């Protein structure tokens, strides 16, 4: 068996040319320890002066083998691992995975739980966008933005904490709904946040949107044409910044996104500034979605499926009835066995299309867990965007792709 690796055809370079090139060019290792690579990513840059000739991202410094781990844990045990992929928007990851497992099992959560799932997903999107905005602006040099953004993110994390007890790695979603009641103060907290946040966001926009330095740093930088964006499989704001209307929430709605009224913001030029505008508008739409959820949500009703072998029984009944105690025992000790098959569930994560591809062989342990993380795929466009840009633009480009290395390396 031979494993021949196909290489690109080598380009003939004359000795004289090679000499001058090597004298003119400098290889700069950006990372793995660098303040603006958002974690441990390495970008090997070939510079000519400060202009980038070649750019090669080197990944894997945070690779933990999440997919392999998924093949050794039972379905419900894998949920905490999804927290640790994209850790700035953990509820979204939980949501995508749980939706995939529920689809595999053929169950779905009651209405009230679904609304809460949407609210938490949108709040996670806001939290993720706030981290993006803060770090992106910080990379470009706007020092204060990061602190303002983290101030508002704190409110969201407080909501998460009230809801599930954890702030960052939430492990929030459960099979078939929520097994614990919603805390009483939670709706009030969400409403307060929805009232406060638009004012705060207006502040950010006064600081950045028409700032001439911000404009000169972002306008016309990192342009991706629509055709290239599709070819690079970009999703999320990177794709919509180039003017292509693909938002999983609108295109192939999951949960109750088809009941919501919201706009999908689109850019026109496909540069860093357009992606910034798209994400800013997305935050406004998220607030509107949360408000609609709060309005439409039934005040009463079950939070979790009760009579399903795939769902953990209600905590109260476990202590009272023998059947539920047995079911609980089996669910915890043995896990549940979905039917044989394979599903692919895509959700609109804050960074793009987050896909979970599960293959089940009928045992309580998934046969294959595949995480299609949006930022890993989006990051491929970095060499394309960085071609001919300045060294200072690379940090703006990394910021605009919006990566979290836990999610890129998995």
């Amino acid at each position, binding site marked *: 068996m031979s494993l021949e690796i196909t290489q690109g055809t080598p380009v003939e370079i004359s000795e004289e040319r090679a000499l001058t090139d090597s004298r003119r060019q400098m290889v700069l290792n950006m990372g793995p320890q660098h303040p603006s690579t958002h974690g441990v990513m390495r970008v090997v840059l070939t510079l000519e002066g400060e202009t980038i000739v070649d750019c090669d991202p080197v990944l894997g410094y945070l690779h933990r083998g999440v997919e*392999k781990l998924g093949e050794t844990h039972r379905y419900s045990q894998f949920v905490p691992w999804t927290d640790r992929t994209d850790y700035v928007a953990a509820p979204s990851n939980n949501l995508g995975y749980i939706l995939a497992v*529920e689809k595999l099992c053929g169950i779905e*959560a009651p209405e009230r739980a679904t609304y809460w799932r949407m609210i938490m997903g949108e709040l996670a999107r806001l939290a993720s966008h706030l981290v993006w905005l803060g770090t992106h602006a910080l990379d470009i040099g706007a020092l204060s933005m990061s602190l303002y953004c983290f101030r508002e993110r704190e409110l969201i994390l407080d909501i998460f904490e009230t809801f599930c007890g954890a702030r960052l790695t939430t492990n929030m979603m459960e099979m078939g709904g929520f097994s614990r009641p919603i805390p009483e103060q939670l709706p009030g907290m969400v409403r307060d946040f929805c009232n406060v946040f638009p004012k705060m966001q207006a502040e950010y926009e006064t600081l950045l949107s028409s700032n001439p330095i911000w404009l000169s740093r972002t306008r016309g930088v990192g342009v991706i044409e629509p055709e290239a964006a*599709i070819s*690079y499989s970009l999703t999320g704001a990177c794709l919509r910044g180039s003017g292509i209307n693909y938002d999983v929430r609108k295109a192939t709605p999951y949960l109750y996104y*088809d009941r919501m009224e919201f706009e999908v913001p689109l850019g026109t030029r496909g540069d860093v500034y357009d992606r910034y505008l798209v994400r800013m508008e997305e935050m406004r739409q998220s607030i509107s979605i949360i408000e609609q959820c709060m309005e439409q949500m039934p005040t009463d009703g079950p939070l979790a499926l009760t009579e399903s072998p795939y769902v953990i029984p209600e905590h109260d009944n476990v202590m009272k009835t023998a059947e539920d105690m047995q079911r609980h025992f089996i669910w915890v000790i043995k896990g549940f066995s979905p039917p044989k098959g394979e599903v*692919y569930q895509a959700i609109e994560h804050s960074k793009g299309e987050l896909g979970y591809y599960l293959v089940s*062989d009928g045992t309580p342990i998934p046969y294959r867990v595949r995480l299609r993380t949006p930022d890993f795929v989006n*990051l491929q466009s970095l060499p394309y965007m960085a071609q001919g840009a300045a060294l200072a633009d690379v940090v703006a480009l990394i910021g605009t792709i919006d990566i979290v290395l836990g999610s890129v390396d998995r």
Partner: protein
Amino acid sequence: MAEEEHTGGPADSPGRRIWDTGYWGPTVPEEHPAIQAVREKFPEAYVDAVNFRDEMTLRVERPALREVVGYLRDDPSLRYNLLSDLTAVDMLRLRDNPRFDVVVQLYSIPRRQRLRVKAGFNDGDPVPSMVPLFQGANWLEREAYDMFGIVFEGHPDLRRMLLPDDWDEGHPLRKDYPLRGYREYVQPGFENPAPRVRSRFRRP
């Protein structure tokens, strides 16, 4: 759609489902336009089409994978123009031959439909690369090479993606690769390698 009462019960009960599946096209393979088109166009490459949870999976022969996907991308009535995902599955424990499946998730932005295309192959068989069709397949294929050792034919730069360049212990997502690797590693501060514990969660 919102008029219908949502039951919240198991999906087999009537009512609209959250993971509603019009987005994968008709549930019967014979009615699916993409399946029909591929059967007509590539009769010798078509293997079968499976529907599970309303998701349509098209299985084709390995050598024709690129032609089929290219046709699905370019045909004006199909236009599966976004490569959502490309990965592989090691079917070692489920069947004998072929061992691997390469799984291509396609999405059509204009038609809002998904389609999964699969091709089986054995260890060492070259799989046609998708990079000539989709730039975005580049890293996905590098990752599949890294994790499964699949050689993609026509890939411009097939290197390891997530593991180090000098990783010499094989491809970790293969089913015969032990969870903790082949080698024993001595942890810093210890003289002997940590004892291998049997995983609590053995596959039954």
